[in-house]
């Protein structure tokens, strides 16, 4: 099996060094380059064509969220793992909207980093357990505050099944194959799910699924 090609993007040399050491000791990972800001990242992505970019958010020249947007627009096959100090949902949702598939906190353990890289190469999302927990707590609290009913209860079993698959990053075609349904049926379910939950995009679905604890 080909090793997973990884690009590191962080403005802290020491951290990058540590990370490179840590990742290269893992079988099946190879670090193809290191960038210290957003613009350099874009250049190196062009040159090295990595499978995964591990990206910090706060960087000079161009921040990680903007760099993520440009990378995933131009190279849809590449996956971005955000590794950030920020744990507020405003950073998570913006990263997801920019196209990142995983969001890790910088106090993450080695195991989380490795798990996240594996998950995104398989097309799944991954979040630091801490992030998942915070998002879930906030969500539960917000529901309690508003006294609103959980719209998740409105979903049918089939819709919940499809919601999870969408949140895990599966395309409609993959979902249709997995569940043995027609592409048209999957698309209809998907539309219903978004309407019932008042969501508008895949990142929002992912965030919702994380908040509900459907995926982590």
């Amino acid at each position: 099996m080909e090793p997973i090609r990884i690009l590191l993007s962080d403005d802290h040399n020491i951290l990058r060094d540590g990370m490179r050491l840590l990742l290269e000791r893992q079988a099946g990972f190879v670090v193809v380059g290191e960038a210290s800001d957003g613009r350099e990242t874009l250049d190196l992505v062009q040159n090295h064509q990595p499978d995964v970019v591990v990206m910090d958010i706060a960087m000079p020249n161009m921040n990680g969220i903007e760099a993520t947007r440009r990378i995933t627009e131009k190279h849809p096959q590449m996956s971005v793992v955000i590794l950030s100090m920020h744990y507020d949902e405003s950073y998570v949702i913006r990263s997801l909207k920019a196209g990142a598939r995983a969001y890790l906190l910088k106090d993450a353990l080695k195991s989380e980093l490795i798990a996240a890289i594996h998950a995104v190469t398989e097309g799944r999302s991954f979040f630091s357990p801490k992030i998942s927990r915070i998002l879930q707590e906030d969500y539960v609290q917000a529901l309690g505050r508003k006294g609103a009913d959980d719209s998740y209860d409105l979903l049918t079993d089939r819709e919940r099944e499809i919601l999870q698959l969408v949140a895990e990053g599966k395309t409609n075609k993959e979902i249709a194959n997995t569940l043995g349904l027609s592409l048209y049926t999957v698309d209809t379910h998907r539309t219903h799910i978004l309407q019932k939950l008042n969501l508008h995009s895949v990142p929002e679905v992912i965030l919702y699924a994380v908040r509900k604890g459907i995926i982590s």
Partner: protein
Amino acid sequence: MRQRPWLVLVGGFGGLLLLMAAAETGALLFLNSLRHSGNTLQSHFLARNRTLEQIRSDIYLSGTFARDSLLAPEISGSRAQIAAIEGLRKETETSLEHYAQSLEPEETKPFQALRSEIEAYWKVLDRTFSWTAEERNKQRFAFFYDELIPRRTSMLQIADRIAGLNEESLKRGDEKLGALFGRLQLWLMLMIPVTLLGGAALAGRTIFHILRLEGEIERRLDESVQARTGLQELSAKMLRAQEEERRALSRELHDEVGQSFSAVLMETENLLDLDPSAEARPRLESLRGIAEKGINEIRNMALLLRPSMLDDFGLVPALDWQARETAKRTGMHVQLNSEITDELPEEHKTCIYRIVQEALNNCARHAQANTVQVAVRRETGKILLSVLDDGSGFDPQRVRGLGLLGMEERVRHLGGTFEIDSQPGRGTKLDIVLPLARLNGNHKNGTNPHPSV
């Protein structure tokens, strides 16, 4: 020179009034004495004139009586005339005595002449009374035309001269009065300019003083206005500096110190990967725990100083975070209703965020509220912010904590209005309006000067 204004005014105008009163009283007294002198002069003249008239008529009458008595053939037939002449003679003597009392020096000579002339006249008349009937008959006409008439005429002439002198005396008195009037005129001519000049001087002094006082007041007003403006500018500057420092510190903690801890964490993981000895492993695991804890603490400190969302994404995400944090920390229900989509000027953003932060703190700390509703919305040219809680409330007239003062100060710097509506037991409502007019000016730049995201 420090003088009380009332002293100056009372002194100035009082002095002026006194001067006017004195001048007027002097003139009145003078006029009064003049009138009195005039009256005396007039009555004196009239009395003397009357006496002279009396003398003249007595002499004239005595002549008539003498003629009548001589015309009688016998002395016995002229008794009545002789008695009348006797009476006239006495009357004339009394009148002469009377006139002599108020004799003017230049009248002395003619008066003596008159007197001796009259004496002689009576003597001549006396002589006729002892005439026999024959003597009478013979000398009657000669005496009448040669003695009596010339003597009478001479006496009347002297009396006329005295009357003339009397008139001259009146004229002299009038001249004296005229001179006195002249003096009054002079006095008035002197007093009027003195009063006017004094008044002008006093008025000038008073006006000068009042103007100086006014100038002083204006200067002090200017000074205090300047001082207040200076203080406000200083306080605005300090607020900006404080915010800037918080931002820098927050970012430094987050991006530098935090990252270093991350690096420590990463390196510890690397060491743990190297199969450390049984002794070293628990130490390394402890180190990993410490680094993890450090990262968390630094992140929290940075957020408390100034949440990075405020600079990275704007006001609403920062308020969202603040509302969630407060709810989590205190158990209050925080409802946030923000209808702001576009980016605001830096100062407005910070102002609103800090006010909401302070208000939520107050709700949790002092008001023991269950629910807080925060609403931010934009209308044309202004932003409206309200914070409503169901807590214990207070009397805004009496209680004005540092927190509220700080909020008010921030709002005033941006030219906004700040209203508190609260009563003990009735909760609290803050209403804030921030104008956005300055957007067109130098506050146009609403984006973060040090963006990282």
